[in-house]
């Protein structure tokens, strides 16, 4: 079977130790997570994980079910790229002296719709939102222009194309209206 890029979106209770429980299912199969983003969701008290990884659909499906089975996981689903909108954010720290010498750098920044966050005599920080490919292509350009000091890229964030909120079923479910897991600390 062919490996494809999958995005798994997981909703959990917001409690300590949850990330460990989620990632343990990958560790167990020695599946390597490509990117992971964890943050609060649109629902109070519910955490959302977006995990991207390369894998075979069969094993991605199994691991997703196992994650959903965990007691404090509300929902877990997996998607291919054509089923979601997704983005990543990157920050590039560039050498200001090199930028001043080489006007190509500023042109690259403008062409790529990068936003300048900070300029000081030593370095300039620019931010770009886009696909992994865009972000890495820009990285290569800055490296070629010899101005790259530091680089960081976020994990992917994604929303499914379907109109309905994935958690919808839960939100209208009787059980859900009962108390969330006890808020500890």
């Amino acid at each position, binding site marked *: 079977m062919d490996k494809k890029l999958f995005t798994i979106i997981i909703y959990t209770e917001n409690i300590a130790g949850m990330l*460990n429980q989620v990632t343990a299912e990958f560790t167990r199969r020695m599946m390597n997570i490509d990117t992971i983003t964890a943050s609060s969701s649109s629902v109070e008290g519910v955490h959302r994980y977006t995990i991207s990884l390369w894998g075979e659909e069969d094993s991605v499906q199994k691991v997703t079910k196992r994650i959903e089975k965990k007691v404090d996981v509300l929902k877990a689903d997996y998607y291919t790229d054509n089923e979601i909108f997704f983005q990543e954010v990157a920050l590039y720290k560039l050498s200001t002296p090199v930028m001043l010498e080489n006007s190509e750098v500023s042109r690259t920044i403008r062409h790529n719709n990068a936003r300048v966050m900070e300029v000081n005599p030593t370095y300039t920080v620019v931010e770009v939102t886009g696909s992994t490919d865009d972000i890495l292509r820009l990285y290569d350009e800055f490296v070629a222009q010899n101005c790259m000091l530091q680089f960081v890229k976020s994990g992917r964030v994604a929303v499914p194309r379907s109109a309905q909120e994935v958690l919808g079923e839960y939100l209208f479910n009787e059980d859900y209206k009962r108390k969330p*897991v006890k808020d500890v600390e």
Partner: protein
Amino acid sequence: MGKERITGSEALLRSLINEGVDTIFGYPGGSIMPVFDALYDHRNDFRNVLVRHEQGAVHAAQGYARSSGKVGVSIVTSGPGATNTLTGISDAMLDSTPVVVIAGQVSTGVLGTDAFQEIDFVGITQPITKWSYQIRRPEDIAWAVARAFYIAGSGRPGPVVLDFNKDAQVAMLDYEPAKVDCVRSYIPYPTPSRNAIEEAARLVNESQRPLLLVGQGVELGEAHEELKAFIEKADIPAARTLMGLSALPTDHPLCVGMLGMHGNYGPNFNTNECDLLIAVGMRFSDRVTGKLSTYAKQAKIVHIDIDHAEINKNVTVDVPIVGDCKEVLPLLTALVNKAEHKEWIESFARYNAIEHEKVTVKALNPGSGPLLMGEVARKVSEATANSAILVTDVGQNQMMSARYFKYTKPHSILTSGGLGTMGYGLPAAIGAKIAMPERTVCLFTGDGGMQMNIQELGTIMEQGTAVKIILLNNNYLGNVRQWQELFFNHRYSWTPMLNPDYALIAQGYGIPSRLVVERDELDDAIAEMLAAPGPFLLHVAVMEEANVMPMTPPGASVNEMIFE
């Protein structure tokens, strides 16, 4: 109800009483001392079973749970006490056994400092539990205990860990009992799909050669009667997994035997002949399926399971029904036609007759030569009117006793199926006898497994637990030796074993024992064992190099069993 100011330890015990707990398998130590101190005041509320090793505490709790259907409880200390429970917790996870393990933990202030006997117990146990939680605040105790019991016992049961910080054990709180009967992210009893049930019924009604596979789910769901009603109406032959052996009585006319590597020839062979396979509360373990790529390829498959994650895990099925079998089976029964599959059912008997001739006759009536495990198991079973609880250890003793015991009552086989834990038997038998004092509990164990938790003879001595221990001694790690004989060129690497004098050991613990070497002494010895009012060790010298047969060799298909 009014609130009362008490310590965290006292709150823990009241919460346990609130859950109906009356028996605790435990072992004290530094960071759980406040709880054991509080237990001292509750001597009349709990039966305190001091085991001799924390692994024994969990296996005993498992035996207690599986024989009674209640949640088993162990209380241990932090660090080594906690790590000693890991094998039992893993065993409970794989075999869906409801246990709650409460471990002491160092105070919250020193967490993460490598404090004395500190280990990350929640971190270690998350992958092997249904839920693992650290109780850091006294006001969380009642809720955490209630949630633990709810999760352990509901849906597909399993182990839960409560890691209890010492400062929370001694802190004062205003205690109020708590009840948990819903966790919003957890659906223990999924509603079965009506469409799926109708589709399954259609397949049953069309089928000429249906075969039903009975797993432990039927026992856990208490669906024995519902199962019978279904198979009797549609006339479907049923085979049980090792874990589900007592879900359907051995002598039921539609019971066609046991599945699996050392199961019966009829159901294994016919798995690849049937036109419809209906799996109920079983998980298509590799011990049952053999080679997956040739498993039941000709058949439509219906899978009834309470756990959504089991669907299409090992075997891709045509109709999944996710739900409680106690609820699903009657719905299905209502939709299926009364049918008859006489010829098909007879075909099982034909294959089983081949096994009978090639294996069973010799196993049960060898005539001369050393005693065999099979004849001992059958004789013990019959001497208890086939109504005892069979507890097994792991190895040849397990397969032979499971094969030749007969089952007439539910919850009558306790064995480590998923993890295959040597050392499970002795403590599990203690737990079973304590839970079900009115039932005869027969443990079959090997000389290897006996010594893996032999210290629990001390628990038997102290508790006076009337466990009947049948030690099938072949002076070998027999199961491994069998594989070495068959697949590793007779190279008996590390499997011959020098045994101690078990009579002396039993004597040391005040347990009566008898050694049987000759066949003509066996009946009398079994009678003596069963007549003894308390525990008894029946030490049987069995043939050293005997093999468990028939067998689906590793990598072979279910219809390729070998007989010698």
